[in-house]
């Protein structure tokens, strides 16, 4: 009796397994090497963002996230589906990038990622995302190592932000040729972005015939910068004429304020980079930053799209863009949408299947893409930007573009 019941049960289970297996195989057979993302007829397409949206650098990430949201809003349906954004926080550090990456790859309905904000978060996340077969496009990572195959490059990583090889060379050229200064010092905070940029600056400045008298670092979270500034002022080659510290808001503000108070640095020209360009940063630096220089992507965009974009930004978020990488995020999102439309396979019932490898190949093949930030063409390691760097100066609490 018991035995017979067992057999019946076993048969039932086997039958249900076979039936459910039949049900799972969709109408379009997925042949993609990395698998496919399947959306039902009424499912929204899901993309994720992983930007710094809390903490001292929140404006940097929120600004980019607004760019993504505007792109979704202005684009309307993609391949006949609405788009849903899953917003994660990269925390602007390696742990945050790792955590956000793990969370994203555990969700099979996410087709692509816009992120990260900080290069420090980008390094681990690029690995996590790539290993899982996903793809990410960063609107604001600028560290050279991220697209260097000998360092932190991974096959699922692209970016619409400039590579700091360009920015470091530009600020060095500005200091050496435009301001006519011959000695400089650079301070970074160990983050791949800041260290990479400071390194490129040093190489370029020395390449132009200048002398870098000090190259040192602080730690994230440091408040008392006077010891390191005192050491810079006492360097062997004398106090530098130009001091470049491409660090983030809090440390940048501390360095800007305290450099004026250190003996020997009173007449040193100080400069920071795009990690310290936001309304909040200008407010945090205050009067001490009057006349200070900032390098960053050239935001004097032209074109009708940017006009519409800014209007949308004002309607949705009640202000002009608050930081630098909103347009890069907008372009990154639209690159992703273009590729979904190119490689997505729609079925008669309206369901959509997007191959992950196809998605990657399509993004890497982006060429002549007309975005707000320029004409984007991706190289074989995911550098897609059309980089234009400008230098602005803080005048009365406003960033005023002065060069080139």
């Amino acid at each position, binding site marked *: 009796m018991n035995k017979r019941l067992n057999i019946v049960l076993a048969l039932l289970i086997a039958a249900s397994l076979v039936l459910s297996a039949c049900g799972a195989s969709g109408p379009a057979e997925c042949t993609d090497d990395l698998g496919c993302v399947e959306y039902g007829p009424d499912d929204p397409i899901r993309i994720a963002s992983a930007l710094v949206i809390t903490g001292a650098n929140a404006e940097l990430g929120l600004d980019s996230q607004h760019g993504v949201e505007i792109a979704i809003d202005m684009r309307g349906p993609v391949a006949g589906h609405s788009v849903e954004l899953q917003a994660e926080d990269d925390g602007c550090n390696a742990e945050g990038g790792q955590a956000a990456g793990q969370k994203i790859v555990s969700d099979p309905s996410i087709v692509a990622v816009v992120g990260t904000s900080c290069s420090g978060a980008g390094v681990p996340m690029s690995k996590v995302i790539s290993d899982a077969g996903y793809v990410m496009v960063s609107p604001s990572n600028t560290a050279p190592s991220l697209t260097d195959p000998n360092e932190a490059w991974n096959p699922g990583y692209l970016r619409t932000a400039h590579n700091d090889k360009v920015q470091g060379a530009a600020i060095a050229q500005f200091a050496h040729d435009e301001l006519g200064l011959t000695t400089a010092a650079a301070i970074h905070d160990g983050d791949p972005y800041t260290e990479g940029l400071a390194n490129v600056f040093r190489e370029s400045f020395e390449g132009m015939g200048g002398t870098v008298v000090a190259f040192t670092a602080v730690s994230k979270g440091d408040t008392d910068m006077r*010891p390191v500034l*005192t*050491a810079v002022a006492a360097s062997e080659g004398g106090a530098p004429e130009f001091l470049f510290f491409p660090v983030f808001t809090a440390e940048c503000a501390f360095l800007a304020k305290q450099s004026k108070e250190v003996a020997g640095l009173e007449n040193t020209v100080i400069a920071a980079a795009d990690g310290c360009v936001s309304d909040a940063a200008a407010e945090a630096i205050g009067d001490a930053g009057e006349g200070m220089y900032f390098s960053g992507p050239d935001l004097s965009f032209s074109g009708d799209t940017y006009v519409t974009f800014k209007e949308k930004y004002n309607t949705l978020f009640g202000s002009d863009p608050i930081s630098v990488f909103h347009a890069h995020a907008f372009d990154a999102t639209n690159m992703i949408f273009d590729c979904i439309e190119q490689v997505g396979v729609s079925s008669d019932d309206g369901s959509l299947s997007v191959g992950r490898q196809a998605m990657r190949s399509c993004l890497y093949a982006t060429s002549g893409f007309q975005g707000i930030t320029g004409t984007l063409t991706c190289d074989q390691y995911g550098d897609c930007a059309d980089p234009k760097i400008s230098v602005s100066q803080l005048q009365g609490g406003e960033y005023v573009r002065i060069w080139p």
Partner: protein
Amino acid sequence: MQRRLQNINYLDVVLWLIRVAIIVFVLWGTIATLRENPYSSRNWIDFIVLGIAQGSMYALIAIGYTLVYGVLFMINFAHGEFFMSGIMTATVFIAGPLDASGYMNKHPILSLLLILLVAMLTSVGVALLTERVAYRPLRKAPRLVPLITAIGASFFLQYTFRGLYGSEVKPFPVINILSGKIPFLGTEILRSQMVVIVVTIFMLIGLYLFIMRSKTGKAIRAVAEDKDVAALMGIDVDRTIAITFALGASMAGAAGVLYALVFRQVHFFMGFLPGLKAFTAAVLGGIGSIPGAAIGGLFLGIFESVGPPLFLDGLNVPAYHQLKDVITFTLLVLILIFRPQGILGERLGEKKA
């Protein structure tokens, strides 16, 4: 002889080797730096003064850890948040508006006193509330429970204040009479740092006298000695513990104002690292001892400032300022190896713990 050799534990040998290695390393670095001598004596005085100013803040915060540990044997990890809450509130509601209206530079002393008062009162309020809600119900619980609660309270307070005031870095206004430098020992020091050092000295002396001379101070010492007996002597233990928290928090509130004067920006996360450093300072000086907390704070501040250039510059370590925490915490380990009770601490195990 052979028996004595057998008694030597391998672990002891390894520990001794580590100690010797650290000391050799430090001496080697120091000698190398002094031989090259890239810094003038004026630089060294600068480093030391910077260290004393930073250390004064650690000392004031460390007092809170030590006081609470003294009465409850509990590490109050939310103490850094008491420090943050006071100055954040004072910056947003007092310093910002006063500066915008121009009152700050017309009546700087009055404005500063008002900022100090608001910061201290807010810190005390937050501390009393935390003590009542999060710690008092757990007084009879095992020791680990309040410790974990304190960590939770710390996060809760951080994110509450982030919710209240926003996550951006807020500037603290420049006060004209405190900007600029004054001559001191052949160099110049910032007026704000001078204020920090002077105010800290007065507050520490005041606190010491309060604990040692006043009736409430006596009650605090009695509760620290033995809660049950103190209760039998007619001391209201709960009230005394609340007063202890308030005292520690008022010191932290004052430290917050000094921090803002020197660094001129505040942020919801600003309490975390100084809190951790001040805890280290309290342990370094001997937790439970008030002079110990003061000395531990100064020691830590000076080592953070002088240590990296003195020990590492001569060894040609690149970007050695990043390693200042390594130096300070190595120092902590060294001191605790040689003196587990801290510089001025009493031996645990006799009457406490």
